[in-house]
């Protein structure tokens, strides 16, 4: 029987990890991730899990221990944020390249410098080309549910890729919310027993992981990685939907909110989607045809699905919680605009960068974005604006 709990995003991540009962967890403390690992350490100390917990001496070693453990044939979970993820950069690529399924929670936090411990998405965006599947979550319930989906997706025989479960540092990681949790056996039935494909531990059938791979084969291996990502998209859609049968909560790679007849649409990810839903309700009550497209899956990027969702929309604002210095717009903006290139009767599109370093985003600011879309001239130029920053 499902039961409700009042827990934070970090607690939800720890509780779901407990229910997954992975072989290995390796992690290094960084704010705002620490509470997840503290909670999980309690489960270990109380014998509630069978997990080998490795308290490593850096995030770089956390990911490296995970790579070793996953290649050995274990089900593996880790978590980090911001500079920790940046330190991992090198090995984050290796995990994906070696096709090692594992789950990493990232409590999204601004990258230094100057040092800042609060939310933005610059950490996850820094590794967006690393070959990890990236899911962004709106709230603690989504975090809890996505942890199980991540096992099924990453370990799928046609995918074999690591999955990053992103949620907003402090906003989601520390806020206490209602989370409906599943029974342990329901979780175990859903995720299934982990069957590694070529474990290092099989000493009778020795093989090599990641050998020197030069101009003869490297390109083919990269091409296979591309194929895995492409194949992953429909499987992820199916898995997220199928999770509804287990939990009663069906997910998609994106969520449409009052999108069917909307003329003016905001696209964003994570907790800001919650605030935007509130604004959409408020403006719909005033008869304004506004809507939200919340993107959950950022990698692989569902370009076609987004183009389909946005057909017929007049104007779009894309909200990015990270900057891509020197680029034309934030990462989400450039992806969405790219996805719309082949659409007939293209919507006008504008990009906003907001919330860097945990700067609050208010309902009124989001309403302002909608109002600007509504009052914009017909031929809107795709320009980039900054929301809630002094001097703009």
């Amino acid at each position, binding site marked *: 029987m499902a039961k409700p709990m009042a827990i934070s995003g970090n607690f939800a991540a720890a509780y779901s990890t407990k229910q997954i009962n992975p072989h290995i967890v390796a992690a290094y403390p960084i704010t705002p991730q620490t509470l997840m690992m503290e909670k999980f350490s309690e489960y270990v100390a109380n014998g509630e899990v069978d997990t080998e917990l490795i308290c490593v001496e850096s995030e770089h070693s956390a990911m490296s221990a995970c790579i*070793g453990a996953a290649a050995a044939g274990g089900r593996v979970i880790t978590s980090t944020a911001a500079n920790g993820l940046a330190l991992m950069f090198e090995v984050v690529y290796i995990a994906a390249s070696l096709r090692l399924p594992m789950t990493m929670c990232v409590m999204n936090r601004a990258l230094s410098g100057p040092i800042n411990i609060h939310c933005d998405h610059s950490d996850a965006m820094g590794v967006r080309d690393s070959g990890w599947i990236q899911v962004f979550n709106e709230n603690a319930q989504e975090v809890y549910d996505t942890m199980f989906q991540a096992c099924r997706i990453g370990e799928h025989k046609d995918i074999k890729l690591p999955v990053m479960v992103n949620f907003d540092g402090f906003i989601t990681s520390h806020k206490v919310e209602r989370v409906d949790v599943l029974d342990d056996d329901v979780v175990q039935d859903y995720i299934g027993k982990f069957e590694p494909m070529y474990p290092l531990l099989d000493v009778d059938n020795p093989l090599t*992981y990641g050998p020197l791979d030069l101009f003869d084969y490297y390109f083919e291996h990269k091409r296979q990685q591309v194929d895995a990502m492409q194949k992953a998209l429909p499987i992820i859609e199916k898995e997220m939907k199928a999770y509804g049968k287990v939990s009663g909560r069906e997910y998609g790679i994106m969520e449409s909110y009052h999108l069917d007849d909307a003329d003016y649409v905001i696209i964003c990810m994570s907790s800001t989607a919650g605030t935007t839903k509130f604004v959409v309700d408020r403006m719909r009550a005033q008869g304004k045809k506004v809507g939200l497209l919340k993107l959950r899956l950022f990698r692989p990027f569902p370009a076609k699905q987004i183009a389909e969702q946005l057909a017929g929309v007049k104007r779009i604002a894309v909200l990015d919680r990270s900057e891509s210095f020197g680029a034309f717009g934030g990462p989400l903006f450039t992806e969405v605009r790219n996805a719309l290139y082949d659409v007939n009767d293209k919507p006008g599109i504008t990009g906003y960068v907001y919330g860097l370093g945990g700067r609050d985003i208010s309902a009124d600011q989001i309403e302002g974005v909608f109002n600007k879309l509504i009052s914009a001239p017909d031929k809107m130029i795709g320009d980039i604006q900054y929301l809630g920053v002094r001097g703009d």
Partner: protein
Amino acid sequence: MKHTIPQEEYMERGHMACLGCGGAHAMRYLLKGLGEKTIIALPACCWAVIPGVYPYSCMDIPLQYVAFEVTGAAISGIEAALKAKGKKDGTTVVGWAGDGGTADIGIQALSGAVERGHDVKYVCYDNEAYMNTGIQRSSATPRGAWTTTTPVGSTKAWKQTPKKNIVEIMVAHEIPYTCTASVAYPEDIIRKAVKMKEIEGPCYMQILAPCPTGWKYPPEKTIEIARLATETCIFPIYEVTDGKYKINKRIRDDKKKNIIDYFRTQGRFRKLDETTIQQIQSSVDAEWELLKKKEKCFGEEI
């Protein structure tokens, strides 16, 4: 006929090491001691090339290539998986790295791994520089050695600082077993490999692995030079078991050779001046005397 070295091979013919590579000898003998149930993680180093380029390999044991600085962390993960999956049936998890990957970029992960007490065996094959990238100095390069980043110029020449004593750093971690070894003494490598396999907990072994390419000597001299390193006491062979020191290759005072005999065999020391050679001789003598004292003070009861 009784063989002192096991005949089993876990490293096959067809490797890509240079002619006379001490590192190739070191791996071959280590594996003869550890046996077939061995999993090796290795970072960037000569040994990332030696097994062969994909799809070829000369290795008959599971191998994982890892990033340069993470050997200690990777073997921690593999060992944890071994434990979690209940497959501790005599399988040995080994980290195998060069001196740069051990004493420089990998020292943090190594220190972390042994501090956490993983049942892992870390072996450093010490060729005293970054040989794979083209003979750059590492912190394990000895004082007086030419490398491509410590060239002999008009105002500065060779490496000025002494070799980092990584062995004593590992002893300071109070792990169950730390030892040195040399390709000149294969039976000693094999005995130590067997010993490490039997010990539960982290062990560290540093094998002197002369490099003809980087040390500038003819390839057939590898074993001779390795032996000289021990006979001059610049690379003593000893082990520290639970804090107790034991010198395995005892060099009698009257048999101890001068450091100049060792230096003359290698082009990398060719430009050294008399004064520096004498200074190095004094420090080698002092280190050797200190080691003997350690054996006396912290040795087995004799």
